[in-house]
């Protein structure tokens, strides 16, 4: 690590001491004000996105007078956001009607939107945890995409090539395969960073492409490709390797959601209740001080990147074993990058990650409904997400917009500035 030439050591120490004191005396207010900043950021993001929705509607632009234009604009925005909400949670009157119908299947269908939200949220929890774990150790794992793909490939391979085992053996085996191969995809950049200082942002992005081409390669081999097909699609995983779901009730929600919560608890325990977790956080906070204190910084980097990759690999396994049941190119569809937004919104905290994943999962599930109902393209959700993160990352901006008093300690974590010399 290079020294910072533009900061005097004395001032550095004073600033650090002030940070510590601040974090000790004002923990409560920090939580509430950070929730407040997130809520305000979300509102601002919705307003800005509404502007995009309105100005891109030809009916608004070609309206004969201002009143008509405003009316059309209001219908656009309220229709889109209404569709988003009912798609994520369900329409209250329909939900009540379905629940009181007396038929189990109809009653279950009331939970369809919620089920879709949870299905979309589960992989986001895994990739969000992957990025958050990296943040804690001062690493920016931007290669979640490749790790998701590698993990999904491995989990799928075990799922369709191992036969004759019960679900109690084959499912954990497939999940483990996904975790381990994801770990391998994180281990490589971790090792390169520890040994040579190669910045993980570049090496993980390059490994994303390697994983994508590997997928195409494997899906064109007899080992993977479904017999009788010429397009790149794998065989179907055994039912013993599938994550149990509520398919009998026509709901897609599956056990991957429970696994995601369990893993979030495990990551929390790892980070704040184990020596290894302490070392992660120490290296993330100050690698030089950690080295001086006798922590093997290189080892911590390798282990943290590997675990981060393993978590992302579980997201791939979750998609293949819980939703798709076969591997196709592009099955990850940006999950790795979405993990970054989830981790940032969750402020690198497992509890926050689960909450953020549910929020974004709801947006994803709602967007499908919104597009079907109002033909507002689903991509607006990505705009909303990015705007939320930008406003959360710059709390000073949100405070300036809403004229709030300044509070320290809110904002995105800072990870390894520079490319590491």
């Amino acid at each position, binding site marked *: 690590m290079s020294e910072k030439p533009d900061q005097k050591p004395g001032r550095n120490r004073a600033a650090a001491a002030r940070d510590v004191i601040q974090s000790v005396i004002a923990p409560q207010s920090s939580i509430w004000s950070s929730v407040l900043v997130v809520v305000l950021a979300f509102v601002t993001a919705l307003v800005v996105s509404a502007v995009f929705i309105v100005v891109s509607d030809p009916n608004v632009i070609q309206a004969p007078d201002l009143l008509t234009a405003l009316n059309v604009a209001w219908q656009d925005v309220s229709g889109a956001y209404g569709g988003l909400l009912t798609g994520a949670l369900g329409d209250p009157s329909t939900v009540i009607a379905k629940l009181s119908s007396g038929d189990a299947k109809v009653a279950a269908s009331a939970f369809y939107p919620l089920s879709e939200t949870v299905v979309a949220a589960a992989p986001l929890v895994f990739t969000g945890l992957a990025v958050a774990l990296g943040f804690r150790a001062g690493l920016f794992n931007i290669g979640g995409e490749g790790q998701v793909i590698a993990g999904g490939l491995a989990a799928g391979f075990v799922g369709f090539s191992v036969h004759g085992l019960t679900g109690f053996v084959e499912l954990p085996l497939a999940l483990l395969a996904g975790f381990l191969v994801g770990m391998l995809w994180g281990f490589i950049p971790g090792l390169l960073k520890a040994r040579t200082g190669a910045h993980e942002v570049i090496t993980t992005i390059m490994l994303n492409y390697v994983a994508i*081409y590997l997928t195409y390669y494997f899906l064109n081999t007899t080992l993977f490709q479904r017999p009788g097909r010429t397009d790149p699609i794998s065989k179907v995983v055994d039912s013993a390797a599938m994550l149990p779901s509520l398919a009998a009730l026509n709901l897609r929600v599956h056990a991957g959601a429970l696994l995601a919560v369990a893993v979030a608890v495990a990551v929390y325990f790892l980070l704040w209740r184990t020596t290894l977790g302490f070392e992660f956080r120490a290296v993330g906070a100050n690698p030089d001080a950690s080295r001086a204190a006798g922590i093997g910084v290189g080892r911590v980097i390798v282990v943290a990147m590997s675990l981060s990759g393993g978590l992302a690999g579980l997201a791939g396994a979750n998609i293949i074993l819980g939703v798709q049941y076969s591997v196709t190119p592009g099955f990850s569809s940006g999950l790795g990058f979405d993990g970054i937004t989830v981790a940032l919104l969750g402020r690198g905290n497992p509890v926050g990650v689960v909450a953020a994943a549910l929020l974004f999962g709801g947006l994803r599930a709602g967007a499908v409904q919104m597009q079907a109902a109002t033909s507002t393209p689903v991509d607006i959700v990505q705009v909303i997400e990015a705007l939320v993160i930008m406003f959360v990352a710059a709390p000073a901006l949100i405070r300036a917009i809403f004229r709030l008093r300044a509070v320290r300690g809110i904002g995105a974590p800072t990870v390894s500035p520079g490319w590491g010399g």
Partner: protein
Amino acid sequence: MSTAVRALGAGARVAVDRRRTLGIFFLLVAGAIAAFFGYNVPGQSQAHFVLNLASSHAIPIPDLVVPVRATAFGLAAACAFLGTIQVVRGFGRWAYAVLALVIGLFVFAFLAWAARNSSVSLVGMLQGTLVRAAPLTLGAFSGLLCERAGVINVAIEGQMLIGAFSAALVGSATGNALLGILAGMLCGGLIAVILAVFAIRYLVDQVIVGIVLDLFCLGLTGFLYDRLMVPFQATLNSAAVVPPVTIPGLSRIPVLGPILFDQNVYVYLMFVLMGLIYVALFHTRWGLRVRAVGEHPRAADTAGIDVARTRYINVILGGLVAGLAGSYFTLGAVGQFTKNMTSGRGFISLAAMISGGWTPVGGFGASLVFGFADALQNFLSVLNVPISSYFLLMAPYLATILVVAGVVGRARPPAADGKPYVKQ
């Protein structure tokens, strides 16, 4: 012994180590050429390189026919010779030029081997390489302009994407390619303004803002594509592609003519910008100031340079260049926008900039490697390669990992790269 002296000694040792590593790398390349492309090849097999291009204005010349085995052994010997000199004496400041030469020899040996008993258009491949490298190089210039002033630009991908979108939109609506290109640059610049404000004013982690801006541009262009371009395809998403420009006289030169002087406009723009940025950055007072801000902002500040202003200007310049790079994908290539059409090339530009050691010429050289891999995809069907083409396509990414890991020798980023500066 003082720290400075010890550091100097260590530096000299590292330099020697690096010289030897590079030399050994050359020797390994020589071995690889001989083993993979020479040995096992029957002595009589020949590779047929077509040197004329149907569409070109060049004076026709006969095709180049080379014996595969003899070529491979000859090129291997040349690499071994260069490697030996590098190990024993070192090429000093020419080491990277020699590295480029060795990579070129390797690629030629590979092509001769892959084209054995068949024929391939060498000129077409090189022309394609240069065209595919142009947007990557421009993207690398964008990153370079920002990082030399100390701001990391990971938003190149997003700036390219929004540049491609707005260039297609304005180019189609007005029927004027120049207006389209300007619109693309402007939108790239707008994203850069957001990046600059967050990075310089609000001191947010620059890599994070960059990534979030990439996602923002991906979402916004996807949304507006569905909303505007799909229903109004004919009026808003069918721009005329900028035609290639033929330079009279020079384009008649065989081989070089079609590659360099009968080219896509973006290739010329790339070369012009390369010269411009090189001179501006290393031979003007402006460039000296920019580099001072990127290396040691405190010292620059003390000397009276406005650090924040310099960074704002450079980040916005970078955004304009990335927007220009983006407009290539629509106005320079296909005339139509599709969702996520840059597909990660902004990140490749970033890698090219780092592999190229934060210099314009280095960034161009690294982009050529990716451009070649891109162009190779079109020729795979006529080539004779026993391994899966997917592994060939993987090669540049693996090579980048090796370069970034310092296997081949690593350049140093600007010292204050990515670090916010707070005036005291």
